[in-house]
C-alpha cells in the first residue's frame, strides 16, 4: 500500500487549509502534483484512490480530473521527460527540427521511452516560453534556446546525474 510520509501528509494538511472549510476538493490539483512527485512520476490507480481517500472524494472525481489535465501522467514515464513545445511561435524558430534531432539521437518516437527507461519524448503545446524558442520542459524547469548541441549537452547531463545517483 502506498502512503505519503508524515512530512508530506503535513504538506497535504497545509494545502487543504488554504481553502474554506469543507472545500477540500479544491486541494485536488496540488495534491495530485504531490502524489505524482512522490510515487514515481506518474499516477497509478492506487495513487489516485489514495488521494481520493485523503480528500474524502469518490475515486471517479479524481479520475475525471487526472485525465483532464495534461501534466498528470497516467502511465509510467522515463526518468527524464523531454517535453518539447511544437506550437506556432516555437515552430517558427525551428522546434520541428529539434524534435527530429531528439528522435534520431535517442532513437525513439514521440510518446516513447528509451529501453533503459531514462528518456521519454513528448510533444506539448505552448508552454509560455515562445520568445526563448525552441524550448522544452525538463522536470520543474524550462530549457530554452535549444540547438542540437544544447540537446546533446542536456542528454549528457541527465546521464551524468543518473550515474551519480546510482
Amino acid at each position: 500500500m502506498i502512503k505519503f510520509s508524515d512530512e508530506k501528509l503535513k504538506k497535504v494538511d497545509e494545502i487543504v487549509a488554504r481553502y474554506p472549510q469543507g472545500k477540500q476538493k479544491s486541494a485536488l490539483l496540488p495534491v495530485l502534483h504531490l502524489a505524482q512527485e512522490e510515487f514515481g512520476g506518474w499516477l497509478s490507480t492506487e495513487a489516485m484512490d489514495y488521494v481520493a481517500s485523503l480528500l474524502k472524494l469518490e475515486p471517479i472525481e479524481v479520475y475525471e480530473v487526472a485525465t483532464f489535465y495534461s501534466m498528470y501522467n497516467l502511465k509510467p514515464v522515463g526518468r527524464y521527460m523531454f517535453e518539447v513545445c511544437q506550437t506556432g511561435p516555437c515552430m517558427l524558430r525551428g522546434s520541428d527540427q529539434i524534435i527530429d534531432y531528439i528522435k534520431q539521437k535517442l532513437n525513439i518516437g514521440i510518446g516513447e521511452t528509451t529501453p533503459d527507461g531514462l528518456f521519454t519524448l513528448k510533444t506539448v503545446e505552448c508552454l509560455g516560453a515562445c520568445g526563448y524558442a525552441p524550448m522544452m520542459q525538463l522536470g520543474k524547469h524550462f530549457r530554452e534556446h535549444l540547438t542540437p548541441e544544447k540537446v546533446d549537452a542536456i542528454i549528457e547531463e541527465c546521464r551524468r546525474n543518473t550515474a551519480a545517483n546510482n
Partner: protein
Amino acid sequence: MGSRKLLLEKAHVPGIRGYDVYRREGGYRSVEKALKTMSPDQVTEEVKKSGLRGRGGAGFPTGMKWSFLAKPEGVPRYLVCNADESEPGTFKDRYLMEFLPHLLIEGLIVSSFALGSKSTYIYIRGEYAWIPDILEQAIAEAKNNGWLGKNILGTGFDCEIYVHRGAGAYICGEETALIESLEGKRGNPRIKPPFPAVKGVWDCPTVVNNVETLAAVVPIINEGGEAYSKIGVGKSTGTKLLSACGNINKPGVYEIDMTISVEEFIFSDEYCGGIPNGKRLKACIPGGSSVPILPANLLLKTAKGETRIMNYESLSDGGFAKGSMMGSGGFIVLDEDQCVVRNTLTLARFYRHESCGQCSPCREGTGWMEKILKNIEYGKGKSSDIDLLWDIQRKIEGNTICPLGDAAAWPVAAAIRHFRDEFEWHVANPIASQNRNFGLAHYADPLEVVPA
C-alpha cells in the same frame, strides 16, 4: 526617447526579487496609501478613473468590473489572479512573476482591499513549476513585514494570498474554467449567467483579473488614476506589456505606452530589433494566437492608409476583415520564409488539444479543422477543402459555450481571408509545397488606399 515604464522600470535593479531591495526602491507605498488613506470604494474609483483595461485578452475596463461585484451581507468575496498564461505567443505574466514578484503581491493586496477579499488566490499554470516558489517566498516576506495576515497596518483588514497550481490546460485561463479548476474540478467553462461577480468560486462573488492588470493597480494608486489615464491615447491608457516572439532579433518582454507604431515596435532597436538575416516581414499575429493574422501590408498601415499604432483601437481598426486585436499582447512575427498554412495548422492543433470538449461545435470542429489543414499542409488537400475550412470555422464561431471556440475559428478565418493564395498554391502544388515555401508573394506590396 523610449516609452514611460510603470511596471518594468525597476526590473533590472539587482536583488529586486527580494523584499528589502523592492521596499527600498519604493515598494509597498501603494498599500500604505490605500489602506491608510482611502476607502475600498475610493480605490475602485481611482482604478475606474485610470481607464485601465483588463490585460488578459478581452480588454474589459477593470474599474467597471470591480464595481459589478455583488456584496451580499455575510458572504465572503474572492479575488483570483489569473496567471494561467497559456495563449501561444504570450509570456509577459511569467516575466512579471519571475522578476518582480513583489509588484504582483503589492497589487494583489491593494486590489483585495478594494474588493474585500480576505483570501486571494493566484491561479498559475502548472508548467510554470518553479514560479510558485518565487511567489510563495515573496508572500512570506510580505507577511513577515506586516503587509499580509491579520490586521494589516493596524487597519483591521485581514488578507492572505495563496498560490494554486494548475496542471496543464489552456482552457483554465477562461475565468469560469479557472474557477472550476480552483474548486478541484475539470476545467469546463461554466454556462453564464450567473457571472462570477455574482456566483464565482464556491458560489461566492468573485473577481478574476490578469496578473498584469493587478500589477498595474500599483502605479495607479501611487500616481493617481487621473495621471495614469493621461499616458497613452484614447481608451488605451497606461502602459502595456508585450511579449514579442517569432522571427525577430530581440524576442522578449517590452513595456510600451501605446503610442508607438507597429513598424517602430518591430524594427526599432529598442524593441524587437528587426528581422534576422535581412529577411523581410511577411505577416504578424499581434495579440496572441487567437487574434487574426495580418499580412505585412495591412499590419503596418490600416486599410485607410494610416500608420498602425500599437494600441487597442488602432490594432482593431478595420474590424476582422482588415484589422486584428491587441489581445493578450503576444506579438508573433513571421518572416518571408514562413509558411502560413503550417503556422495555421499548429494553431489548429493547439486549439483541438485544448478544447475542453463540452460543446459539440468546438469539440468536433477543432479536430476537423486540424485534419483538413494537415491534408493541405502535407500535399493531400483539395481545392474544396479551403471553402470547407471556411464553413467549419464559421459554424464554430459564436455558437459555443466559451470564447475558445471563437479563438479557434479566428486564426483559420484570418489565414484564409488574407492568405488564400498560399492555401491554393499548396493544393495546386502538392509536391513543390513539400520542398519549398510560397514565400513573401505579394503580402508586403503597398495597398491601394480605399478612401473612407
